[in-house]
């Protein structure tokens, strides 16, 4: 059964069977505006919490998306190469950014749940 976590950096993390799918929240995509390019990570890369995994570029600016928990990238959403606007139209669905294998699931305990995140963005 999948469980979804959030970070104060406006990411969502959906965890199922030790694999986390990561994206940015609808609030975040709205703040960024129309995305025109997403720089995706390589599969197989070992990453630590706080690393930059993805750079999302709007018409105006580039923004980093950070790794929320330690692990290894297993897949990037290559559909975004040709259609970066999926992040705008479906931030929590088809606009996911990458999937990763978690190295320490206990790190998830430090993240927000949906109610906590909604409170954060007010």
């Amino acid at each position, binding site marked *: 059964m999948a469980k979804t976590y959030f970070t104060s950096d406006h990411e969502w993390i959906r965890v199922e069977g030790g694999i986390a799918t990561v994206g940015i929240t609808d609030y975040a995509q709205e703040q960024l*505006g*129309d995305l*025109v*390019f997403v*720089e995706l990570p390589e599969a197989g890369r070992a990453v630590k919490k706080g690393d930059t995994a993805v*750079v999302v*570029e*709007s*018409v*105006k*600016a*580039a923004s980093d998306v950070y790794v929320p928990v330690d692990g290894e990238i297993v897949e990037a959403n290559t559909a975004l*190469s040709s259609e*970066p606007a999926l992040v705008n139209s479906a931030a929590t669905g088809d606009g996911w950014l990458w999937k990763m294998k978690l190295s320490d699931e206990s790190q998830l305990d430090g993240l927000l749940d949906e109610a906590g995140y909604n409170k954060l963005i007010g």
Partner: protein
Amino acid sequence: MSQDPHGTELRHLPLEDLHKAAGAKFGAFAGWSMPLTYPAGVMKEHLHTREQAGLFDISHMKLFEVSGPDAAALLERACPLAAGSLELSQSKYTFFLNEQAGIIDDLIVTRLGPNHHMVVANAGNATIDEVHLTVLAQDRSVTVSPLDRVFLAIQGPAAWDALSRGGIETGMLTFMHGIEPRSDWFMSRSGYTGEDGFEIGLPEADARELVAALLADDRVQWIGLAARDSLRLEAGLCLHGQDITPDIDPVSAGLMWAIPKDIRAAGAFIGADALRAKIAAGVAQKRVGLKPEGRQPVRAGALLFDADGTPAGTVTSGGFGPSAGHPVAMGYVTATLAKPGTRIFADVRGTKIPVDIAPLPFTPHRYRKG
């Protein structure tokens, strides 16, 4: 109170309530809290301007009225401009130069009467410009008056028709001409998008009426500063503080078209000697258009390299061109590389992105010249 990143208080547009009601997102620019985007978003706002008509609140920009028997003489000292030879209602793009021929600000000067000119200057330089003009005016018979106006731009193929239907007669006004159609109004056919359009300075009460009349037309929408920037970049137009600065001269910037030949040769403007020396000696770097390969934008500050990895210059403006459909940028490169088609490379977060020198503008200008 909102503050800019330097902690100083931001100035607020007189029509801020209208932008809030329209759902604008605000951000700091040149000391002002400005509408950056509206709910449509930068991409749609940009395309709407090219297809129909965009309404911009540019009240952060400054209008100076320069009046008196020495008005033209003052402007001919401050700018490489034949101010006294302009026809009535003619507008010219020009600059204030420093003694090194660096660009203090870029401006549009319109001759409204024999001894009466309007100067439109950038928000970020308004204070410097006012001091500069006032100092030069001291031993001349001329008055420099900064005006307190709402300043609106309407840009795009439907701009003229929307203004006419909104009750504003633009008459015979063609591109780069300006008039005072009503008391305390200044209107010129000009803009910063590459499209046909108008800029109108007017009192706040009149501005509220005009905005209501224009927005009643389905073809007219508010457009934010973000789309203003992508529109001007596609149009190859410089942003002062980025593409031109007090350290960059008009020769390097490729803006010599704005300086008439006789003024280059014999004008007595500030910076004339330095400019003539640069014309004679040539410049080391030139401003060019840059077209990155692929979809990844190359932004201001990115360093440029030639095929051998030798430093070749810097990007000064860059982003995505919604009408062009690809990333667009401009910057300065070593003069020998400044030829369209030359391939160079931009360093973006450690990766070398191939970039071709491209002719400007990226989207053709559609000015109404006559």
